[in-house]
């Protein structure tokens, strides 16, 4: 089944994000669920709808011929990825390296060491503070990139007759 209407695709993506958020709640990862619901189903959909409003909501149909090279590339990449997972410990394995020294330390000693009850926050903000700093910088860099490409989107102040002036130019 193919959907050419990008508006429908965007809505389906939002529904998928909401379902993924419910799945995270079931798995007791409430912090992740909150992020997924707010970003995936909220802001991201708004930005995608904004993109559709600027471009078009119908996908262009290119030639119908099969691309054999693409099939080969996808097949080889997928096989490589699956081969890469063979070395990983099986799902939920108590002997997995992550469960033998890091998890016990975080779950048993983080309240004594950091003094706050939410383990996710102490891991994110204290044990892996530099990692979170990197994330904050990445978010800021993403904003700088979008602003350079699209402009700040500043709407000029209203004129006296109440008519909205033309949009701010990107050069400013």
């Amino acid at each position, binding site marked *: 089944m193919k959907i050419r209407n990008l508006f429908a695709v965007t809505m389906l993506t939002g529904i998928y994000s909401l379902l993924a958020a419910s799945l995270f709640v079931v798995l007791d990862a409430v912090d992740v669920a909150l992020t997924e619901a707010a970003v995936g189903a909220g802001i991201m959909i708004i930005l995608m709808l904004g993109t559709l409003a600027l471009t078009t909501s119908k996908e262009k149909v290119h030639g119908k011929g099969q691309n054999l090279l693409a099939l080969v590339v996808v097949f080889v990449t997928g096989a490589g990825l699956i081969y890469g997972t063979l070395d990983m410990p099986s799902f939920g394995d108590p002997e997995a390296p992550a469960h033998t020294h890091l998890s016990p330390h975080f779950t048993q000693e983080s309240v004594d060491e950091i003094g706050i009850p939410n383990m996710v926050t102490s891991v994110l903000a204290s044990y892996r*503070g530099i990692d979170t700093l990197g994330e904050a910088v990445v978010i800021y860099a993403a904003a700088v990139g979008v602003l350079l490409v699209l402009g700040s989107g500043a709407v000029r102040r209203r004129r006296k007759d109440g008519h909205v002036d033309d949009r701010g130019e990107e050069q400013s």
Partner: protein
Amino acid sequence: MNQYVVLRIVTKLMIPVILLYGLYIQFHGEYSPGGGFQAGIIFAAGFVIYSLIYGLDKAQDAVPPEAAHVLAAFGVLLYIGFGLASFFLGGNFLEYKVLLPDDHAGETFGIIGIELGVGITVATVALSLFYSFAGRERD
């Protein structure tokens, strides 16, 4: 959207709740799920819904794009500032326990501070991205 009275009134009632919920997620992150990232997105969502119902120019009167840009940089600098403060007070970079005499109080203070930095950056970045997309006209 000026003709939809129900939407306008309901939005007017909802926005304070959304912003308050964002602040709750921000400052209650040590005890309940949440933190700067989620709080920032929710806080920005309040302004996005305001601009969807009342118009982009009204939202930009409330939070001008320039202010959002400056605050986005300020959040990252606040985060780095906490790291440097703990560095110059004798600890490692981002080792918050040296910030206050008590270890736990120092850690909590540092975590609240950097979460605030993350929250400010995420909220203003999300708002700036929305302004960038919404403020353009179709070519």
